[in-house]
């Protein structure tokens, strides 16, 4: 019984540990922004694990090691060494490394002025997403179609309460706030269908406020645009 359960569960565990099957997985990126964050995560994860185990090991050793009498001067020297190396040096080095990778990554995700981008309006309301392509007068609901490899500016607004627009496999989230227009730069590289969801609690149907993002190869996207406009 137990063995069977293990047999059934282990592939699921293995897959989700790698984070590869998720419709919403941050660890399975399909665009440059999400990819950078994934690498940031794995880097931070490794360093943090080393620090955690190291600090706990030092603590345990300090607690269990055979006792020795220290002179006041030795105590002062040891304290200053431990505090300066561990208490100041360690965090400063970690922060510096983190910023060294983090600042350029964050920089590249910003909505820099760029004439190539496509602008898409997303208007959130309890509990659906109204998507429109202002240049092409196309309206969609709970569905976004993007061209692969081209940056897109999602202009997010809200009708009622605060929502948050999030496509985990493409990049970070941005809140939809009544009275404001927030811009999120996204880019999908791999054609496919990706899950999107509301990330800020917005009322009883928050869990159901989902949408789908389809990334099409550029040519198909152009065809889709044309087909949509012909329908009008």
């Amino acid at each position: 019984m137990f063995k069977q359960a293990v047999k059934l569960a282990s592939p699921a565990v293995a897959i989700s540990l790698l984070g590869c099957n998720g419709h919403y997985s941050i660890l399975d990126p399909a665009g440059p922004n999400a990819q950078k964050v994934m690498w940031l995560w794995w880097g931070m994860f490794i360093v943090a694990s080393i620090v955690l185990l190291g600090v706990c090991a030092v603590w345990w050793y300090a607690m269990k090691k055979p006792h020795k009498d220290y002179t006041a001067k030795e105590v002062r020297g040891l304290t200053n060494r431990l505090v300066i190396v561990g208490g100041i040096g360690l965090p400063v080095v970690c922060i510096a490394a983190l910023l060294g990778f983090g600042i350029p990554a964050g920089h590249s995700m910003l909505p820099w002025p760029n004439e190539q981008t496509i602008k898409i309006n997303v208007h959130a309301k309890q509990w659906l997403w109204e998507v429109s392509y202002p240049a092409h007068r196309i309206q969609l609901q709970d569905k976004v179609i993007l061209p692969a490899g081209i940056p897109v500016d999602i202009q997010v607004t809200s009708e009622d309460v605060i929502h948050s627009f999030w496509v985990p496999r493409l990049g970070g989230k941005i809140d939809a706030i009544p009275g404001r227009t927030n811009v999120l730069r996204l880019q999908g590289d791999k054609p496919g269908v990706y899950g999107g969801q509301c990330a800020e609690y917005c009322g009883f149907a928050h869990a159901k406020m989902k949408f789908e993002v389809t990334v099409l190869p550029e040519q198909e996207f152009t065809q889709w645009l044309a087909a949509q406009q012909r329908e009008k």
Partner: protein
Amino acid sequence: MNNDLSLHAQFAKVWDNLPGWGQLAAVNHTSISRRFMLTGTVFFIIGGVLAMLIRSQLALPDQQLISPALYAQLFTMHGTVMMFLFAIPILEGAAMYLIPKMIGTRDLVFPRLSALGYYCYLFGGMIIMASLFLGVAPDSGWFMYTPLSSAEFSAGPGSDFWLLGITFVEISAVSAGVELTVSILRTRAPGMSLSKMPIFCWYILAMALMIVFGFPPLILASILLELERAAGMPFFDPSAGGDPILWQHLFWLFGHPEVYIIFLPAAGIVSTIIPVFAGRPLVGYRWIVLAIITMGFVSFGLWVHHMFTVGIPQLAQAFFSLASMLVAIPTAIQIFAWIATLWTGRVRFELPMLWMFGFLFIFVCGGLTGVMLALVPFDWQVHDTHFVVAHFHYVLIGGMLFPLIGGLYYWLPHLSGRMPSMHMGKWAFWLIFIGFNATFLMMHLTGLLGMPRRVVTYEAGLGWDWLNMLSSFGSFIMASGFGMLILDVVLHFRYGQKAPFNPWQADTLEWATGTPPTSYNFLSLPTVSTRHPLWDKPDLQATIRDGAEGLKSIGHGRRELYGTEAVTAQLREVIHLPTHSWLPLISALFLAALCISLLSRAYAIALGVAVLATVSLFRWGWVNGAHKVIAPLTEQEHQRDEPPLHSRTMNGPGLWGMVVTLLSDGSLYLSLLFGWLYLWTVAPGGKVPDVSSISISMMMLSGVFLTIAVFVYRRMVRSLRVGSANNLPSKLICVFSFGGLHLLTLIYVVVTSDLAITDNAHDATLFVMLMFLLFHSSIAVVTSGLQTLRAHKGYISQLLPYEPAVFSPFWLFTLAIFWLSFGSFLILPLVW
């Protein structure tokens, strides 16, 4: 011996609580703090049950055990109960229990305020819990983001319960903050200068001051949101010049320091326990003091890291991101100072040390994910996912609950006089430790796989199923651990072995009170010359008990303790404390009635109860200070070899209490000013009307009257200081009259003003500012009127110059906020 016994009996007669129902009138810090801790434990159990319900619902995908509406109430109440009704009060309770004993004194400095604080906490907590049982609990999340919590989207009374109930509970937190600050600064044992203070007191001093500054932004935010809900003032409505982001700023301006308010006392417990079990003084005392002060300040500069996804300019996000990383340094300094203490000590591995190790592992893990979250691009991805849920449970349970339980086992002998046992305690530890990590470690992955917070359920097949199952399973292991812990503690009160004197061979004074302590802690008050009084003078307990130390006279029937200089702890005065009283309970009952009538929107009743509450609070003030029932002037008081009673001086604890309260009040005012500037400059629809709807000239006239009143009052205080009490009543009448004129003109300004308070946020903010001024001016004027009466009755005189000195800063504050408001709310927009 007989003589000693009678001395103890005499002390007990003065200090013990009234019997029977009279216990409700108790003000003694040991009694009150035990009630705080016990009530906090009850709320912890309630909060835990809510968590179990949440985990049951999430155990399987697509489950319909709990409806979305109920689920929203559950997670809102879980957060609210754990933060406001468990974490803060129980830590304050622990601090209130320990601080007077550690600094070698008999009670906290404002004992009746402790009692009021407790009742506000109890009644506020009961009101909030009532909403859950009535099925109308708040359901917009514990951070109550508007507009979801506004009247439009939360029409029921749930949000009102939260806003009014929590504000009520916060009275308790702030009053404890004020009281702890003044107690630590002004009643330490003679000789216990700041540099000789037990490290725990540094932590509590920082925590108390952080409460004083950190809670007012939320109090203001709650007032504004309640005004929006009940009276339609659109502070957070973008279509009327408001902004929902203002709520977030004010909330997190409180909310982030709150995390450190919770962490600091817990770290204080760690810093107290580790040296005791390492059998040596804490190394790096100065490093730790540095870290405490640094955390206290830097934690106020982090709040926007909860708001990285609201679309704030990139550079601003970078400031908060870097400040959030900066705070890792003082944390690491403390951890390595503890390691150094263990390294150079001879460690005894008792039960509390097991909890210390659990704390280290969990808290460091939470701290590391915290640094990750401070990185803006990473936060954009994992914000509001289960990664964050895992992170803050690591920080809060690791950083607060584990040290607290370690501290509980450490101080159990002090509470009960009995020793804890290692057996069940170990079981409880491992169940909680394993259960905790089973619940939350893999929850980081749940978040990385994209599961957002606060979803009532989820589809199968997203890779979240087994992770949620594991979390739910772990949470039940953890719950059974807590059950065992509670059982262990309860059983120990009956079956534990009798504790010897100072069972852990600790260095701090609380162990010299005897276990369990008497109501007056110390029969005579020790003088301290080192950081480790019990290590350096092992017979100290005996000399204290035998009355060989200071201030042992009791025949006068007053509750007395020493007041000392804030920095050097040189002996200054004898502080006499008010004794048990029903007034705190009565006042709290009226305040609770006010809260309930506001909740049910019965405004006529609310007005009536507000008047009653005001009367009872002024009555409380009337029989305090230098009133004849408290400390009548006698001949004997000069004959003993002690410094003067504080009500005969001008720099007593009341003045300090007033100043610290005004710091809190000032923080509230600055939050309002911030709100004003924010709505004016940054809010998307913010604008200032061209013509002021308030009469500038009448405001100026009102200000001139106020300035004269304050000038006369302060001159009167100055001449009292040099010993002259000439024409005291007539000077006070002069102050009262000019203050009254000021107040009348101000009321005239408010009445004749043309504010469209329900149409735009600008006018609504002006209205709140005017109400703020009116509130302070009224208190100042009424109090000065009462002081005129007191001068007639002889409670204020050349020999009793105490009260005007206490009240003087309040007048100055009233003056300052008046002209500051005049300049920034009325003149600045005109000249811009």
